[in-house]
């Protein structure tokens, strides 16, 4: 019976090839697009983790943007406690601490409000030196040094070697001002960050705020996939240690990533739905015609004692074979196209990343499996209605059909 369904596909080769071709096209197309989306997502994930680390541990009020005063600061004792507790977790590559502050940057007669991120230079976990396009990065031992974004540097006419002043309020509430040397200019994917954010050594930030605390501990893990399990485990450890700190994962920390990821999901969902609704209706048309042409044959096999449900299954099996054929060809075509794409390597800069990369397609099991499954299912599904109709005709009427 399964082989009869398969052989039925050979009746009208041109029509079978047409329908299988449409299924294959839909499958191949969505495979390539899904692969492209996955590659982009992976790149953006990577750059997001470059920017935020895998995890950040901080006071919940700070993370939620509700912080008042400096109550959120983590003193050295607690910082050591946190770092030790984190390093005990599997997959942790390293930790570093940061302290950010808002300040007024003054150069000559111009001022700008900036957010200065105090980082440990060359910490091996998360430093921003690889963003530097002019001058040099921050070095251990640097104190009065700053990395300025490209946009801000242009606006203020800053070059490496220039000096500027940064004013901020100390933890105790006093004004404090300190000179800084611009050692490097960094670029970033977002002009907003390039304008409003500068990087200073952690030691400088602590000096300016007159504190020995930090505001967050950044954790780097060996694998991206470990992020969420590690976050849960570390969160539990923090609670057990009685520390009122919270763990945030990189995807939550980056509103940009969250938005983009949701957009990708939507884009892909929409595309797959559109392609397969189209495939479904085209194949539905073809199969309806194909089954209708065989009304008399349905009459014959039913007269010979084939039951309604057997006829139904025969036709749905035919749709399934068609889907397997089209889906198989589609996967092969999609893989070929992807490899071609990856080989050619068109340069492209995904949104939110710093470097242009080769436009490519990631071939994960999901990238191949989803389009294949959906194309096979939608083809089989498009056989259901015409198959049902084929079983509704009375045997005598079907036999009389031409």
């Amino acid at each position: 019976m399964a082989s009869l369904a398969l052989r039925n596909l050979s009746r009208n080769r041109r029509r079978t090839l047409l329908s299988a071709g449409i299924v294959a096209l839909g499958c191949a197309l969505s495979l390539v697009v899904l692969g492209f989306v996955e590659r982009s997502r992976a790149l953006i994930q990577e750059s997001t983790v470059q920017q935020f680390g895998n995890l950040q541990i901080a006071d919940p009020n700070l993370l939620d943007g509700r912080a008042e005063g400096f109550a959120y600061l983590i003193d050295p004792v607690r910082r050591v406690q946190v770092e030790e507790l984190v390093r005990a977790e599997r997959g942790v590559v390293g930790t570093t601490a940061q302290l950010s502050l808002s300040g007024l940057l003054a150069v000559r007669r111009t001022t700008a409000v900036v957010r200065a991120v105090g980082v440990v230079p060359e910490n091996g976990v998360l430093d921003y030196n690889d963003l530097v396009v002019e001058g040099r990065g921050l070095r251990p031992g640097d104190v009065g040094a700053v990395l300025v974004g490209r946009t801000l540097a242009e606006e203020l006419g800053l070059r490496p070697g220039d000096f500027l002043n940064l004013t901020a309020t100390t933890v105790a509430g006093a004004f404090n001002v300190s000179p800084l040397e611009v050692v490097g200019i960094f670029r970033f994917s977002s002009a907003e960050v390039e304008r409003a954010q500068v990087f200073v050594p952690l030691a400088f930030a602590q000096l300016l705020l007159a504190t020995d605390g930090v505001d967050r501990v950044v954790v780097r893990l060996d694998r991206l996939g470990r992020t969420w399990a590690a976050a849960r485990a570390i969160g539990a450890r923090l609670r057990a240690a009685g520390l009122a700190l919270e763990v945030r994962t990189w995807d939550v920390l980056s509103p940009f990533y969250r938005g983009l990821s949701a957009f990708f999901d939507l884009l892909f969902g929409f595309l797959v739905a559109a392609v397969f609704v189209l495939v479904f209706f085209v194949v539905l048309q073809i199969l309806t015609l194909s089954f209708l042409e065989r009304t008399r044959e349905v009459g014959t096999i039913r007269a010979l004692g084939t039951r309604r449900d057997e006829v139904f299954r025969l036709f749905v099996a035919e749709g399934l074979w068609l889907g397997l054929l089209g889906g198989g060809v589609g996967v092969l075509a999609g893989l070929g196209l992807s490899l071609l794409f990856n080989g050619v390597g068109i340069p492209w800069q995904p949104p939110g990343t710093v470097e242009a990369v080769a436009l490519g397609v990631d071939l994960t099991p999901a990238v191949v499996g989803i389009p294949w499954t959906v194309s096979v299912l939608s083809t089989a599904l498009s056989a259901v209605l015409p198959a049902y109709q084929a079983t509704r005709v009375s045997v005598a009427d079907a036999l009389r059909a031409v």
Partner: protein
Amino acid sequence: MRQGSFCYVKGAPVLEGRALTKFYTLGKERVRALDRVDFTAVQGDFTVVNGPSGSGKSTLLNLLALIDRPSEGEVLFDGQPTGSLPERALAALRREKIGLVFQTFNLIPVLSAAENVEYPLLLTRTPRAERRERVREVLAEVGLADLARRRPDELSGGQRQRVAVARALVTQPRIVLADEPTANLDSATGTQIMELLRGLNGEHCVTFVVVTHDPAVIPYAERVLTIRDGRIVGEERRGEPRPA
């Protein structure tokens, strides 16, 4: 014409039609295609139902073959009324106990001759080895042992009808019903098919009901019913047919 005898070992009635009436509605009109027809086929019978076009032959055959239901009256198979049986049970009776031969052969074009003959055995879930054996036997019986692998479109009309006869016989049904089996064949080929059916009746006591408007079929009949305007208007027992 082949010298042969009918099956003389008569058994119980296989198929009975009691007061079979069938209406068709065509637009506003109600056509009475069959009018209180009584019919009995006893095991081993070779019955020909003869009548002009539109007289209700196919209608009667469809009712007897359990592929259509009468408007009034009852069809009994092996003495059991079938009117209240659900569709599944009728399908089971058709695949196990009834063989059908059509005017237009109605073979499945994508299957070979042997596979067409095998088809009913797949429906009855006959084991593979037995299927092979039965197909081989019955194809030999209809003289097509050498053409088993051919597709229907590689066969002549007469050969196709032989495949159809083999398909009807392969399940060893209680009765074989044929609707104008010679109408799409030239007269010489038609004669061969009728001789084949006659031979099967004589040698294996297969029960046949053949409906036709072809007078050339009548000499093969053991019993001839004449149908006109949906009524049986004559019955003739012929016994041993005359040699040609």
